[in-house]
């Protein structure tokens, strides 16, 4: 499900379908959060769909990604099932993390998705580690770290890139510059004009691309993957994109004007890609609407499933701490109960 050949007409339609699925998922999440159905914090990917879709389309199924707190798009692009993602947003037992992770921590290691992450900049070191595994085992497998412009200010990101560069690890560092680190504009957080300039410090290729263009992302990541897999080491890519929603749902966004958002909305990655396909004669407006409806239906079904899914049992809060059981957890939990629990 991950790799797409965007050079083909079918591939381009699939990429569009995937972007629409991400848009539908996060639009639904926005509404459900506003209605109070989803607990916690929700950070939406609307506006950035071309980055995850283009990047994951250029990866092979066995490749790894690390993600951010804004991870829904990465998950869907990597092939995770929106049904179990939605169940996780609801905190249900059938969610990807059995209700222990929520929106900010969806993961499926078997699918190569090493986790959305609540800590800005924490993913790149993990991707470096996954790339290290691939190198040690001689596997045809690379690791791509998605991280935001805010994370470029994080020390551990630079340590991770330096390590991967020094060891020629099969890694790709992909910055999603959505123009804001939480509520602060990117140019107030960094002194460089282009974030990709930081690649020079590691003597690895670094360039900036149009993150609103799914094919541009696909081509850049495709080249970077080839380089990584050949043993030539990591690549640093900055994809310029825009966050249509606030940092989190409910964010009043005092840091930007609606006119600025409108400029970027004109470059909507879904609408612009659709327009190109229509122009090429590969898609009709009717087909696009059908595609959009189908994506909406898929997400509506996911929401229905998540609503009806079972909550975890309270005692499941004590599961999954360790591969090997430690006596402490069960004993302490038991003693919290009215009967004082078992003897030691």
């Amino acid at each position, binding site marked *: 499900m991950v790799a797409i050949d965007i050079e083909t007409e079918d591939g381009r339609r699939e990429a569009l379908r995937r972007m629409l699925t991400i848009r539908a998922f996060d639009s639904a999440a926005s509404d459900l959060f506003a209605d109070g159905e989803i607990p916690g914090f929700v950070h939406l990917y609307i506006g950035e769909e071309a980055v995850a879709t283009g990047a994951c389309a250029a990866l092979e199924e066995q490749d*790894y990604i*690390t993600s951010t707190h804004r991870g829904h798009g990465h998950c869907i692009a990597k092939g995770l099932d929106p049904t179990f993602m939605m169940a996780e947003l609801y905190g249900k037992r059938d*969610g*990807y*993390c*059995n*209700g*222990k*992770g929520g929106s900010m*921590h969806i*993961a*499926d*290691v*078997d699918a190569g998705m*090493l*986790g959305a*992450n*609540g*800590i800005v900049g*924490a993913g*790149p*070191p*993990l*991707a*470096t*580690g*996954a*790339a*290290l*595994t*691939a190198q*040690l*085992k001689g596997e045809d497998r690379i*690791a791509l770290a998605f991280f935001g412009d805010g994370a470029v200010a994080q*020390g*551990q990101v*630079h*340590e*991770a890139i*330096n*390590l991967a560069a*020094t*060891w020629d690890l099969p890694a790709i560092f992909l910055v999603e510059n959505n123009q804001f680190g939480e509520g602060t504009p990117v140019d107030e957080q960094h002194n460089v004009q282009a974030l990709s300039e930081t690649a020079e410090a590691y003597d690895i290729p670094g360039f900036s691309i149009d993150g609103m263009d799914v094919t541009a992302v696909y081509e850049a990541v495709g080249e970077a993957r080839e380089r990584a897999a050949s043993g030539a080491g990591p690549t640093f890519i900055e994809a310029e994109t825009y966050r249509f929603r606030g940092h989190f749902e409910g964010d009043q966004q005092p840091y930007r004007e609606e006119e600025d958002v409108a400029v970027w909305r004109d470059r909507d990655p879904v609408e612009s890609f659709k327009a190109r396909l229509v122009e090429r004669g590969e898609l009709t407006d009717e087909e696009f609407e059908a595609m959009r409806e189908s994506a909406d239906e898929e997400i509506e079904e996911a929401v229905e499933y998540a609503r009806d899914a079972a909550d975890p049992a309270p005692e499941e809060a004590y*599961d*999954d*701490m*360790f*591969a*090997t*059981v*430690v*006596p*402490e957890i069960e004993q302490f939990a038991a003693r919290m109960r009215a009967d004082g629990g078992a003897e*030691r």
Partner: protein
Amino acid sequence: MSTETGTSYDVDQTRTMTMREAIREAIREELARDDDVFLMGEDVGRFGGVLEVTAGLLDEFGDDRVRDTPISEAGFMGAGIGAAATGTRPVVEIMFSDFLGVCSEQVMNQMAKMRYMFGGKTEMPITVRTTEGGGMGAASQHSGTVHTWFAHFPGLLAVTPGTPAAAKGLLKSAIRSDDPVFFFENKMTYEQQGEVPVDEDFTLPLGEARVEREGDDVTVVASQRLVGESLDVAEDLAGDVSVEVIDVRSLYPLDTDTLVGSLEKTGRMVVADESPLSYGVHAEVMARMMENAFFSLDAPIQRVGVPDTHIPFSPALEGEVLPSADDVRTAVERIA
């Protein structure tokens, strides 16, 4: 807790070795046994480790398996975590435990939480080795004993061997464990000698304490360097006070049963651990004794540790704050 074999060992087939040699041999054997195991850290390869624990391993296993890292604890600790989540068994050395603060984000929010937050859908088979303790005049940033932090933090296992045999058997189990294990070596014990089983399959279960010397009057629950010093005290006091010495070995999980069993026998206990006294290992052992053996107590439990200071540079000052055999003896005599 562990499924590893060998809770005791046959002294007929042992070799005398130092703590340093026992640790090095455990790493060497596990590198040889399992291709997924690799070692990384600052100066672990060509240099052989600043305290020479890993000397010779680079020559034997090559620079794929024994990797010198840049000085970037957050970067390579994170890489170890990512590697562990994807099918390898990293052994990460943090040169001095004081440096663990540099990479605490990766430890606290990634290593410790990934398995739980992913609903159990990943293993985290990483071992972090680090050196603790004062006694070398290395001052506050190279002498700390921080194991309490990690024993306290949910999702991590914490091991503190007090003898070469414990070091070898526990480190092998740590490397084989699918959970993250912090392995705390007291740097003043590296020259300490002991009998170590020669069998390459010798391992010790994580989470078991060991009664190193039996006694009837006072139990001393000790860790790391203070195990040896407590045994010396027990020997000195023999005839006057019969001291039972337990090497606690594992701080998390903690072998409550063995400690309770001993307290039920002696009725008196000293807890000796080279870490700050407030909110630490001492407090946890005492709390569990209160919960489980309150009515066996014949005297207040005593604690021997660092009086909530950092470790100073001057030998005249360092000796003052570090817990010693004399401190253990004083504590034993106070309640005997």
